[in-house]
């Protein structure tokens, strides 16, 4: 399970970063010159792939952190599997939510850095750097919000697993009778 999570994390990082780089540097133009239809598809979807990759990366990182922190959770059944399944099922709505949250507060103040770059490197490099910086920050912020949601989701699944295990009498989580009168009533 941990190998699968690591693999998925790496895949989401690669896809997300490639999409962010392409979106920031407008690399879809190069793809269009070679294969117009593929370039058009990539141009239409690279932004959403960036969002989805960042969200997936955040959710998977949160799951890895959660599994390390809740070391004894292996005694409960399937918290990792259930969380992974929920991450996959909720990826699209969470991508939208995390991307919206990442856009909050972005305004003209972020234009300070490209102005300084333009002062000594020129307009074209500063424009490219500005686009790459914006895409990179957007990627990181989306992943950060997804990590927060992922931790909360893992905590919820853990809580549900604890309730389920105590009801079904898993090892170390058996429900104990409150007192003698309760156990006599049950008999």
């Amino acid at each position, binding site marked *: 399970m941990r190998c699968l999570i690591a693999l998925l994390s790496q895949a989401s990082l690669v896809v997300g970063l490639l999409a962010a780089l392409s979106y920031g540097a407008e690399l879809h133009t190069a793809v269009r010159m070679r294969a117009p239809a593929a370039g058009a598809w990539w141009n239409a979807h690279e932004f959403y792939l960036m969002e989805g990759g960042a969200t997936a990366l955040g959710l998977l990182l949160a799951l890895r952190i959660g599994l390390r922190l809740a070391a004894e959770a292996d005694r409960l059944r399937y918290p990792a599997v259930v969380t992974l399944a929920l991450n996959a099922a909720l990826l699209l709505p969470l991508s939208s939510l995390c991307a919206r949250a990442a856009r909050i507060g972005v305004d003209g103040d972020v234009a300070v850095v490209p102005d300084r770059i333009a002062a000594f490197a020129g307009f074209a490099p500063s424009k490219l750097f500005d686009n790459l910086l914006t895409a990179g920050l957007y990627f990181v912020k989306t992943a950060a919000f997804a990590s927060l949601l992922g931790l909360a989701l893992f905590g919820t699944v853990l*809580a549900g697993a604890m309730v389920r295990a105590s009801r079904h009498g898993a090892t*170390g989580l*058996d429900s*104990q009778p409150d007192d003698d009168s309760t156990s006599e009533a049950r008999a």
Partner: protein
Amino acid sequence: MLSLRLLVLFIHVTAVIVALGGSLFSTFALAPVLAEELDAAARLRVARRVIQRLGVIVLGALAVLVVTGISNMEFFNVAGPLLDLKLALVAIVIALAIFQYGALGMRIWGLSATGPHPALVPLQARFRSVGLKVGLLVLVIVYLSLGLSRAAAVPLALARR
């Protein structure tokens, strides 16, 4: 009075009260009374069930906090270093809560299944210590939230002048 924004804020604040109040009650009211009134075996039996229920309540409340918190960000359009600090602290709180109940709590459950065990005392002390740290961080987050709510209210106050 009746708006989605206010409802989400209400749920957010209620979740804080539930998470923080439950932990403080357990640490400062319940645990000392159990220690005074019950023998070791009965105290352990009660403590195990309290830890389990409290874990479910705290972890559930934290999840509600995160979801409603992000919704509040959209409604009030607040951003800045103060909010970034608050979100970082929230992530630390959730991580500590997962460690407290998912590692320490589970280990306590496992060891105490057949009654008192010598390894339980340091584990329970560590459980309480982590719980206090979580409580302190939540109080700091509440304080930061006050600063954020005042920052969000400033444009409204300026507009009214």
